């Protein structure tokens, strides 16, 4: 691939200035590169970098210091997906920087300077890819131009590596830091040439996370670790039941409770400030609060019964309707059916919701673990009636997101509490508040029906969805859509006050399970090999009888399927008592295929032996980080499918802490995960989510192979299958 991109568009701004210190500082409009790719652009109005004074430029993405140190800004929130390492690596690659001299800093929110600064949809690397490459290449080009002028030689013959420019013809060399003061800031390259893939020296390597030392020595990195002069410390109490409202609270019940300083309410919430967070937590237990409970009390059994009954009613929306499913099912030689029950899941980030806010009359500072800091700024500016540019938002390292921190409720609440208290505040939620508050992965009932013709081909596929509260917790353009001539997905929902939100690999996290286990039910019924049936379906998708649009590309899908089959010697395992299960999924622009191997002991106990994963995420940026994402996604997925459930009783969450909500532990995780990246020339695509969806169905399909058991009531623990 050869990429030469013009460096200027109407909105582009590249600027260099030789700072008084001799540092080379470059500001860059990230959007120039990422706009073409980004699904939704951000309108820029004015450029703070352009208006910044000469010299010091806090939003500059790159600084070369006189001592050779290179400071790179990490623009996006880091929540464990590794972008505080992988994004700066992209700049460093094109800059030809000496990585050992790079220092990475978290950038504050400044979308005008940095482009889309959010962590969601596995988009961080994908949306910043071109912009960050060009950022590095622009700096490199300017440094080379300065050296060429100094030596009076053509720039084209100079080489760069490890922050050094060399002239092979004369043998001269100069370090970036030495030449930086001589860069002519007005000499902006009109075009920069990006590297060919075979010129990459850093990308694709294993680079340890840049925060490792800080994490492993316990440095203050997270929102809850923040301290500030005059800060009030507290916690917040939300309505304990979905649909409940605050009536009153009795502060006399806090008489004699240690450390309590202030109690007030807003928005049906009660805030308690105390000497310490723990004293606020203790006061939370003691404070008597009268809540107006919802008239209709919800519970899980009733929710699932209602949803199941609703499946027989007409849908509120038909999401995909190809051919004629009704007729095809009626004429089919054989119809296979399964109905699945899917529970709510909390995100259960290990760092509970928390945020710091310092709201003054004319401005505000909000600092905390936000996945979408621009959304927080918008929401808080509106609530405080301040212009957005008076609200400064800074991102801390995030102790897990999984989608929960796409909402900014916790940041908004901190801002309001600071305004009321008239001082800087830090609000930390208890684990119980965090888990019982809702915002769950949607629950629902899903009925699958497949029609098989006399030749054993799937001719009809009908998915009927009944969400609980959420109107369409389902994907509609993913495999096997496109491979079956009569295909319908329709949806409806029962009313519920339980709140839902995107949860890691939204909808894919469950539809992957449903689609991929159902394919195996069909395969088992008609006596087909699970690999063969998927290959057949992909062949049919390639021919695509309806020419309808699907999200995935068949060749890439087929490649991961074939690769994982080879990795695991599919169908050739000879050990007694070892069974394999296969599953695939496309999501977040990446392709994953997995094979789980389980053993069944004489007393009927199942054990996961290992998981194989083939994954196409385009180019691999940081091999260590990439493998970590795949391993973590698989383990999270297996834990969630085995144990994960929030059930509802009397409109309250039954599971409120880790004694009742079971997360997977060390001994339960597969001891071995074998990963192979199917590397392609595509730009890097999603990694935080795509390894998740195939793992649960791969495990279920292995259990199906071992025991013949279909698991349609989730989690597995509820179906009497203790698998790990």
């Amino acid at each position, binding site marked *: 691939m050869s990429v030469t991109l013009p460096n200027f568009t109407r909105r582009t701004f590249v600027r260099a200035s030789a700072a008084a210190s001799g540092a080379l500082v470059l500001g860059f409009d990230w959007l120039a590169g990422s706009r073409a790719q980004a699904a939704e652009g951000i309108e820029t109005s004015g450029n703070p970098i352009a208006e910044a004074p000469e010299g010091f430029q806090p939003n500059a993405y790159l600084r070369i210091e006189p001592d050779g140190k290179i400071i790179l800004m990490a623009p996006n929130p880091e929540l464990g997906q590794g972008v505080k390492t992988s994004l700066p690596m992209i700049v460093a690659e094109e800059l030809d920087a000496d990585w050992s001299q790079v220092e990475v800093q978290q950038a504050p929110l400044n979308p005008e300077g940095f482009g889309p600064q959010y962590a969601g949809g596995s988009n961080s690397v994908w949306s910043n890819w071109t912009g960050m490459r060009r950022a590095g290449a622009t700096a490199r080009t300017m440094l080379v131009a300065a050296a060429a002028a100094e030596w009076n030689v053509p720039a084209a013959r100079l080489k760069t590596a490890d922050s050094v420019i060399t002239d092979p013809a004369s043998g001269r060399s100069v370090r970036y830091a030495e030449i930086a003061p001589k860069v002519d800031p007005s000499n902006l390259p009109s075009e920069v040439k990006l590297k060919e893939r075979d010129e990459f020296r850093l990308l694709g390597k294993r680079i340890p996370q840049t925060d*490792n030392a800080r994490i*492993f020595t316990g440095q203050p990195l997270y929102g809850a670790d923040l301290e500030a002069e005059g800060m009030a410390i507290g916690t917040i109490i939300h309505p304990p039941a979905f649909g409940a409202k605050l009536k009153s609270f009795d502060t006399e019940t806090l008489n004699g409770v240690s*450390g309590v300083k202030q109690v007030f309410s807003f928005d049906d919430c009660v805030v308690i400030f105390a000497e310490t967070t723990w004293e606020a937590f203790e006061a939370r237990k003691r404070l008597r609060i009268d809540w107006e409970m919802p008239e209709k009390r919800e519970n899980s059994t009733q929710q699932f019964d209602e949803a199941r009954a609703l499946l027989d009613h007409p849908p509120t929306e038909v999401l995909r309707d190809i051919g004629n499913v009704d007729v095809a099912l009626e004429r089919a030689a054989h119809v296979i059916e399964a109905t699945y029950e899917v529970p709510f899941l909390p995100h259960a980030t290990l760092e509970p919701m928390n945020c710091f806010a310092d709201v003054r009359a004319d401005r505000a500072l909000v600092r905390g673990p936000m996945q979408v800091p621009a959304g927080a700024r918008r929401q808080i500016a509106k609530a405080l009636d301040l212009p957005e540019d008076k609200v400064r938002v800074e991102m801390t390292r995030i102790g897990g997101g999984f989608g929960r921190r796409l909402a900014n409720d916790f940041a908004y609440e901190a801002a309001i509490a600071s305004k009321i208290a008239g001082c800087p505040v830090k609000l930390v939620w208890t684990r119980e508040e965090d888990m019982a508050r809702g915002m769950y992965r949607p629950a629902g009932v899903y009925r699958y029906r497949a029609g098989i013709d006399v030749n054993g081909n799937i001719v009809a596929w009908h998915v009927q969805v009944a969400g609980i509260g959420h109107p369409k917790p389902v994907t509609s353009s993913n495999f096997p859509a496109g491979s079956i001539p009569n295909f319908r997905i329709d949806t409806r929902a029962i009313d519920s006050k339980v709140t839902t939100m995107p949860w890691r690999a939204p909808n894919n996290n469950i539809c992957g399970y449903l689609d991929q286990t159902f394919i195996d039910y069909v395969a088992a019924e008609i006596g087909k090999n699970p690999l063969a049936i998927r290959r057949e379906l992909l062949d049919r998708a390639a021919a695509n009888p309806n020419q309808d649009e699907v999200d995935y590309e068949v060749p890439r899908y087929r490649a991961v399927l074939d690769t994982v089959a080879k990795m695991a010697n599919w169908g050739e395992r000879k050990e007694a008592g070892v069974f394999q299960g296969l599953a695939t999924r496309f999501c977040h622009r990446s392709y994953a295929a997995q094979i789980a191997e389980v053993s069944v002991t004489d007393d009927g106990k199942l054990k996961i032996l290992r998981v194989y994963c083939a994954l196409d995420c385009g180019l691999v940026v940081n091999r260590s980080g990439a493998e970590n994402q795949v*391993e973590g996604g698989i*383990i*999270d997925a297996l834990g969630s499918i085995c144990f994960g459930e929030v059930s509802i009783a009397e409109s309250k969450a039954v599971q409120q*802490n880790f*004694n009742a909500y079971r997360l997977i532990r*060390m001994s339960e995780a597969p001891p071995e*995960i074998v990963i192979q990246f199917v590397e392609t020339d595509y730009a890097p695509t999603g990694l935080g989510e795509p390894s998740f969806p195939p793992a649960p169905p791969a495990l279920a399909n292995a259990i199906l192979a071992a025991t013949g058991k279909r698991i349609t009531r989730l989690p597995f623990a509820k179906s009497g299958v203790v698998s790990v």
Partner: protein
Amino acid sequence: MASFNLNINGSTLTVEAPPTMPLLWVLREKLHLVGTKYGCGIGQCGACTVHLGGAPVRSCVLPVVAVGERPVTTIEGLGQDSLNAVQRAWDEVDVAQCGYCQAGQIMSATALLAKAPNPSDAEIDVAMAGNICRCGTYVRIRKAIHRAAELQTGEHTRAAKEIPA
């Protein structure tokens, strides 16, 4: 409110705190040692793990009054001059994702390796059973514990060789 003399990371520190206040919050908010994390408050997740007299304990359920004179070690007290073998192995294996649980994981692993210098997988399972990693870095945690065992053995061997005959 009462006064306690605590032996934390080798120093004696005096704090004023309610006797039932868990050690976790004394560390975090009285002593500003924030490496020890709050995750559940009921001793289930292990993010708050510290050493008490060398043994791993969940500091979120340990009242400060119960600490007594036993020495407390927190993540900040490990490898104060340079990273210890467990911390180095954690970096080498690049264990962390979000990192929030890792201080607790490292404290549990360090205590295990002090007791069992070359632990089996089964011993690792038992020692680490109290520490949840929500990101699912368990494969790497196990690998890093084995690697730390190697690093530690290397250090001991070197130390033994340096003793003059």
